């Protein structure tokens, strides 16, 4: 890895994103619009809205970044730019970290805007600070990026890549405690949910929702999520092939 290549590549990915105005608009507006929808669905049920909106603040960036990253990486592969990139001084880690940082920056903007509107317009209330919510949301986005990069190694076409969204995201979403509290699940389901990273970020968000200051559980959960990010990036690097058949 080298710093100037990492900076150049991160800048290039952000520039690509900047040219795509519609994607930026969708990235920034979509979560807010969906939260607004939830707001009207749970009209008058403040408790329920607070719980679901808080979890969604973490889930949206995860799902969006998972999708965007796997498509972006697939495009690098199918357009031949990935093959070309590997004949230049760009290393695998340069590329993976550049994607992580660039989309992490995009996710920070997204999470900040969504949280701002959720607290101000929709009256979201959490015992802990909004800053921690944004921090966890960004960690979730980076988790989405890392898993997206890993998934794209197993997809040959766009059709396959979008199929990975339900495969990777849906089970995590079902088992993360949004629908059924994790301790109330059958033992084997709880076991599965225990090895899914989204369970920990949702738990961290719920800690922020319930406690005025950051708790040890929250930090532990955040660290677990970041460890999964590093592991996914390392696996992603291992599955990224410089030489292809």
């Amino acid at each position, binding site marked *: 890895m080298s710093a*100037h*290549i990492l900076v*150049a*590549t991160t*800048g*290039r990915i952000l*520039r*690509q994103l900047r*040219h*795509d105005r519609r994607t930026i608009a969708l990235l920034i507006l979509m979560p807010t619009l969906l939260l607004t929808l939830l707001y009207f669905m749970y009209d008058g049920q403040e408790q329920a809205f607070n719980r679901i909106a808080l979890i969604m603040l973490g889930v949206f960036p995860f799902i969006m970044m998972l999708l965007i990253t796997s498509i972006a990486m697939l495009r690098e592969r199918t*357009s*031949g*730019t990935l*093959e*070309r990139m*590997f*004949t*230049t*001084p*760009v290393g695998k880690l340069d590329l993976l970290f550049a994607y992580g940082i660039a989309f992490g920056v995009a996710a920070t903007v997204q999470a900040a805007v969504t949280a701002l509107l959720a607290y101000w317009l929709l009256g979201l209330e959490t015992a802990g600070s909004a800053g921690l919510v944004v921090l966890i949301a960004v960690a979730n986005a980076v988790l989405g990026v890392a898993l997206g990069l890993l998934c794209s190694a197993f997809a040959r076409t766009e059709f396959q890549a979008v199929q990975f969204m339900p495969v990777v995201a849906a089970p995590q979403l079902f088992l993360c405690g949004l629908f059924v509290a994790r301790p109330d699940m059958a033992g084997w389901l709880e076991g599965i949910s225990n090895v899914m990273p989204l369970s920990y970020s949702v738990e961290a968000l719920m800690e922020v929702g319930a406690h005025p200051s950051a708790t040890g559980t929250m930090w532990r959960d955040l660290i677990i999520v970041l460890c999964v990010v590093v592991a996914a990036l390392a696996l992603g690097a291992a599955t990224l092939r*410089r*030489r*292809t*058949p």
Partner: protein
Amino acid sequence: MITAASCARCLARPNLIIHLALNFEGIAMDTAIEVDDLVVERGKHPVLHGISTRIQRGVITGLLGPSGSGKTTLMRAIVGSQVVKAGDVRVFGYPAGSASLRHRVGYVTQSPSVYGDLTVGENVRYFASLYKYGATEAAAAIANVGLDGHEDQMVSTLSGGQRARASLACALVGQPDILVLDEPTVGLDPVLREELWRQFRALAEAGTTLLVSSHVMDEANRCDRLILIREGSVIADDAPGAIKTAADADDMDKAFLTLISAQGEKG
């Protein structure tokens, strides 16, 4: 195995004639690329059947052969992006694709590989920055391929030939010691082709090694050396004049046809 090309001292001081005499393999010390018994399979089918060749430093080598004969595959093996089954490919004495070669080898793929969602300028400046070059070098590379005035145009809106030239500019900007160009002039008009070949020649004279694949026989005549492959085997590897003489033909088109069909009868 010590060959002249793998000898660092030789590389640094190409005038050390004595090494020529000491070189027991008889390889000229100005060899840039050595390919030995290269076997490549793609999709379970053998594509290259034990190819061996030497590509000289500072000259233009043309790679010719019918469609599907394995030109792109050989080039991919040289830049280190092809899985090879057996054999050895060395560039400046290092195994193809080594980290130390990656700032010295420029590769232009057959179908242009540039970012469609960036402008021409952004693409070339990105590639420039990978080699620690800046906007000045990027602008020069863009002008060299005749795309000045299109800096701010999105690559996705370029014509086919313009996109190919944008892709070429991204390789030129790194000022590599070896340029591997897979059909760089396809779809270009004669004026542009003439202009690009003048630049290839100037680069070779400045010491750059060029390997250029082509289908155009007029371009074959502009090369210093030609490698002719058919169905994954080298059938001729010589100067254009010598190839024409060997085939007893007075133009390259005829020589090509004669050699291809003669080989076909043998096989």
